[in-house]
């Protein structure tokens, strides 16, 4: 419950505060969002599985975002940024999908 409140508070903060994303970081925003969503859904699923672990969640969020951003940065430098972005989106997308399916089974038993 507190977790949901924290998330909601973050969304409100992000919407209300005029956070200026530096132009250099803007290409990484969508990837960071996907990576963060993966961490969140993974955490929710682990919670429902009864194996949630705070440290694991924090580390997975930070490493997801950093690694995803780094890969895109590397891809940009090598000229294959869009292809690597697709790869990252596919991997995270599959994981999000699988985790959401598990959450669904937990919630609806279907």
């Amino acid at each position, binding site marked *: 419950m507190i977790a949901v409140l924290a998330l909601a508070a*973050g969304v409100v903060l*992000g919407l209300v505060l005029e956070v200026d994303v530096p132009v250099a970081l803007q290409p990484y925003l969508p990837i*960071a*969002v996907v990576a963060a969503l993966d961490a969140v859904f993974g955490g929710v*699923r682990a919670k429902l*599985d009864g194996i949630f*672990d705070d*440290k694991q969640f924090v580390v997975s*969020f930070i490493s997801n975002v950093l690694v995803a951003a780094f890969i895109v940065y590397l891809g940009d430098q090598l000229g294959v940024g869009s292809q690597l972005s697709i790869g990252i989106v596919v991997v995270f997308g599959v994981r999000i999908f699988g985790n959401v399916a*598990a959450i669904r089974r937990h919630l609806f038993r279907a």
Partner: protein
Amino acid sequence: MADPKGRHGFGVAPLSPDFLTELFQDPLDPGYADAAARRAQGRTRPPWQRRGLRSLTLITLVLVGMLLGVACRHVLAEEPDRTRARAELVERIHQREAEVERLREISDGLRDDVSRLRDLALDDSDVRRLRELEALTGLARVTGDGVVVQVADGPPVLNPTSGEMVTDPESRILDQDLQRITNTLWASGAEAIAINNHRLTATSTIRNASGAILVDYVPVAGPYEVVAIGPGDLEDRFAASETAALMRMLADRYGISYNLRSERDLVLPASGEPKLHYAKPMETAPAAPSPAPSGGD
């Protein structure tokens, strides 16, 4: 999962050879299972550490929320920016076009003044000769009977991939089509031609620039109206030409619209002042003795 310790060992199920299959089968980070296994073994963290990690989780969640909020705001802010920039550019183009139109009117008026004053200064035969030359070179407005050739892109069709109504590139009028039409008109005896009210001269160009057709570097948009003044049988001559046959074929096969008709009392505008790019007018006074060979002995 049966052997949680195995995950930490070297070489024991490090990464399945088929990474994607594992990803599909078990999307949850294996770290959660490891942590649960550690807890099951009784290796729990001290309470202070647990509280600290708990607050870290909350901070992380706030961060995730902020990320989502910022991204949302970012996406929302970007779209109007783009449309606004486009609208601004469109408006600026219209403004400049209106300005060009205004300046052209002024220049037309001034040119009329100049020719009137010149007519006063010259005798009748010179005036007539000048007028004729001006009409021929496109420097003066001309009137007469002639033909109007109308061509236009085919009707837009639904694009199955984008769902937009677009004109099939095959049924578009190209610069070559207009070039063909004007060349055939000249060949059929036309003495003055204008495309969409833009008079052609001996140095006029009809070109293509990324989908737009430029006549003397001024973009013209369809439907294109090529108006020509010429002999009475201009329509018949044009209709019998290869170009007309090609246009009819294009109309049949690709759906462009093509229409040829004779019309009386057409008025064609003057073209702009011809620009000299390389030659410079001589600055000698006309009264001075000219060394030109054409002066004769």
